[in-house]
């Protein structure tokens, strides 16, 4: 049938027309990718090159002119105590962010692995925090954390866990970072859960049946079958968590309100570039953060990711 149609078509279409169409179609792919390439080239790749170049240029709106400075910007930022603090803080944000979101996400994924009534609704509720703006999350959590009227203080005091209301964020470094990190974990855990769930669901059910026939308990199946086989999902979830924590800004901006106690690398970069208008040092920090993001992502994937075959 198709062969017949093909033959008729060949007879019907005049040769010249076919050739013309052919020539027009060689340009077509380029026309189709051109808008994409223009956007990516002009507003992603070119700016990245500018950042890499700008890191080595003295570019301070309060101290013109712009001039080449070699490693000067890097020296200045590393001699800046606030920058060093923000680097340390960001390391803590990464530890809390990756650890908590992957652990909690895996727990949620295991809960949602098997079908049950209302699973669709639970899944939708779980995804909700991921879909909300980080700033809005910072705003609603800052009311929860409020030192005078917050529900966290009120709730903990009524069950007797604390004697008097606490200032959760602003004084103690580790505690401030933890409570800000929780807000980000609230946002990114659904992502980790979905990624782990996707690899859980790719595990064939027969493996569990076979294990159960051999007398394995549910906990043994979880430990021996599930966890090794979800490694790819865990790896991707860890990388996503890592990138998010390395870039944490919205929650810090709202909850930390400019103090350096819990400043992150991004909030520090924002302050240097857009409050102090020292673009050169901003570029230097940005370049470091960009390279770190890419290197850490690749390393994490290499460490955890194993191709899984059934």
């Amino acid at each position, binding site marked *: 049938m198709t062969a017949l149609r093909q033959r008729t078509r060949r007879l019907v279409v005049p040769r010249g027309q076919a050739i013309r169409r052919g020539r027009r179609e060689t340009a077509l792919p380029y026309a*189709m990718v051109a808008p994409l390439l223009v956007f990516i080239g002009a507003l*992603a790749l070119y700016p990245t090159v500018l950042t890499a170049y700008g890191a080595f240029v003295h570019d301070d709106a309060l101290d013109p002119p712009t001039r080449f400075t070699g490693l000067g910007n890097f020296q200045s930022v590393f001699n800046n105590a606030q920058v060093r603090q923000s680097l340390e803080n960001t390391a803590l944000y990464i530890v809390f962010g990756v650890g908590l979101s992957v652990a909690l996400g895996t727990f949620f994924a295991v809960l949602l692995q098997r079908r049950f009534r209302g699973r669709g609704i639970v899944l939708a509720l779980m995804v909700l925090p991921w879909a909300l*703006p980080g700033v809005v999350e910072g*705003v609603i959590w800052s009311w929860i954390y409020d030192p005078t*009227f917050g529900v966290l203080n009120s709730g903990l005091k009524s069950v007797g866990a604390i004697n008097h209301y606490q200032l959760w964020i602003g004084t103690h470094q580790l505690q401030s970072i933890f409570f800000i990190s929780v807000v980000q974990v609230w946002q990114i855990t659904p992502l980790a859960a979905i*990624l782990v769930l996707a690899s859980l669901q790719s595990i064939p059910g027969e493996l569990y049946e076979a294990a159960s026939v051999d007398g394995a308990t549910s906990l043994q199946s979880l430990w021996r079958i599930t966890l090794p086989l979800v490694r790819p999902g865990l790896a991707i979830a860890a990388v996503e968590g890592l990138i998010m924590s390395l870039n944490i800004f919205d929650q810090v901006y*709202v909850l930390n309100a400019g103090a350096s106690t819990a400043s992150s690398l991004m909030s520090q970069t924002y302050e240097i570039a857009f409050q102090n208008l020292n673009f050169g040092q901003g570029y230097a920090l940005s370049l470091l953060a960009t390279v770190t993001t890419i290197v850490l992502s690749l390393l994490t994937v290499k460490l955890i990711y194993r191709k899984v075959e059934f």
Partner: protein
Amino acid sequence: MASRSRRFGWARGIGIGLLVVWSLFPVYWALNTSLQTNADAQSSPVHWFPSHFDFSNYEAVFGAGPSSASGAGSIGRAVVNTSIESLGATLLTLVIAVVGAYAFARLRFRLRGVLFYAVLATLTLPVYATLIPLYKIMTSLGLVNTYLGIILVYTSGFLPLAMWIMYSMFQALPPSIEEAATIDGATTLQVFRRIVLPIVRPGMAATAIITFLFGWGQFIFPLVLGSTGATQPLTVTLSSLEGRHVVPYTIINAAAIVAIAVPAVIVFFLNRWIVDGIVAGSVK
């Protein structure tokens, strides 16, 4: 066997209860606060439910009622700005990504591999890589404080992921349908428009929804690119009201609920496509 699954049944029930409380409580708390008077919201112990529904905070958010003078009236404008910017960026991203992804997935042309990886590589670029230069570029083009500037920057940021999701959707299609149409004499563009696009509509929906949600939540770029209020999205307005103790927390929570409502409705009704999109976009 049956007893074991029952034993794990209640453990699962508790776990799911925890999941729901964890995911929903902060939103519930904002909603609860937004429906209280300022005096109720500041009472101790806290009110776990509003004693009566008080909508004056929402009236203030949209510029009506007695509290609107306190700077809360700017929130209504910010909602409009956020909608224009995220819808504009979604449309532009979707059109460019779908057309480009199809060419990369199905057409053969010189430099295809190099160009494809150049686009994909930008998927790993963090905000840091482009923030300061984009501010400078937009300043020199006079696009600071304009919708166009913000839409262009959003689009450049969303394109790599959108392209990647659409690329994997196109790759998943069996090529036989397109081959049959080509044999019937359809041009590449006809095949793309009449046959492929209708089939990948769900994928386009997933891409559009995820892109829109990203746009709705953007903060640092509009913070940097719009120093005046004219084009400020809700996120920037909210962050400037927060912590100044000028606007009561009940009104801020009402504004937060407005910012939450749109994504919440999307998640509730279109959840499946979001999950599909996230999975398609991150399994590399």
